[in-house]
């Protein structure tokens, strides 16, 4: 490529990690998202329904998701679900605000949600599974 613009010292780098990557980019989506959580939490506190926010439908620059996690912090409850891969449900330092991260069996993230609720749906045992389990236990104890 014929360079016509600025071309700083063309020192070859020794490894891929030595390439400094600085992304000073903001999408401006962090603050509005946190305010949405604030409103949802207020509604929950007033006795209204919970809210689920899908983090994957918002463009977030590298580092911004970490910033959101940093602000929300970690609370008293951390649950790990093993269904079609691991799912981590972490209550943040704000009771009622849960961070749900779904991963598949290859550890790739397939879903990230902030649930503002008393307890995330997935933590509850499901009716169909309970019924199956009841039958199984009955059969198990017969033998």
């Amino acid at each position, binding site marked *: *490529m014929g*360079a*016509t*613009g*600025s*071309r*700083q010292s*063309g020192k070859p780098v020794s490894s891929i990690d030595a*390439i*400094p*990557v*600085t*992304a*000073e*980019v*903001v*999408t401006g989506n962090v603050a509005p998202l946190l305010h949405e959580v604030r409103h949802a939490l207020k509604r929950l506190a007033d006795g209204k329904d919970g809210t*689920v*926010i*899908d983090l*994957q*439908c918002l*463009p977030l*620059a*590298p580092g911004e998701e970490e910033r959101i996690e940093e602000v929300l912090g970690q609370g008293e409850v951390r649950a790990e*679900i093993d*269904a*079609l*891969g691991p*799912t981590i449900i972490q209550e943040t330092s704000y009771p009622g605000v849960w961070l749900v991260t*779904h991963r*598949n*069996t*290859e550890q*790739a*993230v*397939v*879903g990230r*949600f902030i649930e503002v609720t008393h307890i995330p*749906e*997935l933590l509850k*045992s*499901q*009716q*169909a*599974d309970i019924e199956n389990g009841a039958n199984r236990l009955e059969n198990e104890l017969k033998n």
Partner: protein
Amino acid sequence: MRNDQFLGEYLRMQGVSRRGFLKFCSATASLMALPPSAVGQVAEALATARRPSVIWLSFQECTGCTESLTRSHAPTVESLIFDAISLDYHHTLQAASGYGAEEARMAAMEENAGKYLLVVDGSIPLGNPGFSTIAGISNLDMLKETAENAFAIIAVGTCAAFGGLPRANPNPTGAVSVSDIITDKPIINVSGCPPIPVVITGVLAHFLTFGTIPELDALGRPAAFFGQNIHDRCYRRPFYERGQFAETFDDEGARKGWCLYKLGCKGPTTYNACATLKWNGGTSFPIQSGHGCLGCSEPNFWDKGGFYDPLSAGMWGSRDALLGAAAAGAALGVGSALAARSRKKKAQAAEEV
């Protein structure tokens, strides 16, 4: 594979708990860009959906689209959606071959007439039917035959959707897209070279959930994934606005992650989900890795100027032609000036007489 089985039942038989199924629905709804409030509806629809029969025809293609979709070896949510369909014919993935394979295709078409999904990757050569054949049948004939009783057609990849690489100048095989041949069936163009895997499964998931084809844009692509252009969702957009561009691939600007417009990025005129969904499970996409967008989900992207020529440079031809135009103009200028002078001289001479 039983095609009359409910999807919910099928997943339960695979050992997926209700909790796992809900996780699956949650991820699927997110995939289809549905709000979390729709998860319940998705769960209900998927539980009672029937496993549709899918016939996958591979024509003039590089198999990249299939590779994009099936890279993982362990079950993932995406592959579970893929498994949820009854894939009755696929060259790369099926165990059968020869007459057995073709018989399986004919049987699936008959049993599910009017209800099966036809997935096509690769373009269709019209120059000579012998350029691309399967079991001695030309692509054109096989497409027409299989499309006749299909419910809908999904053209996977830019080759099937718009002609792709084979269609690039000078198009030696006379390659055309699926929609150039089939005009009486709904066609969903899932373009990209290759398409993002979750986009392919997102379309299948939509079909599984709602039994209909999703909303399409003017080029027949699912609007949920192709509705925004890369430029509007690119995380490097602030650099574009501030006028901070990388001039070469290894200069200061490139290392700082500045905008790649000057290095030929076609982001502003390309519609795809790369900037938000990204590739390899959300790891990265070309721009994040330092290379401009090629515009691979757009028709004729191979012939839209060089990959490294900036968008605004245009495709206006050569400077030599301009110099030729200047020479012609100069000639006319001299000629008309001299003609004007001689007219004036003659008029003066006539006056003096």
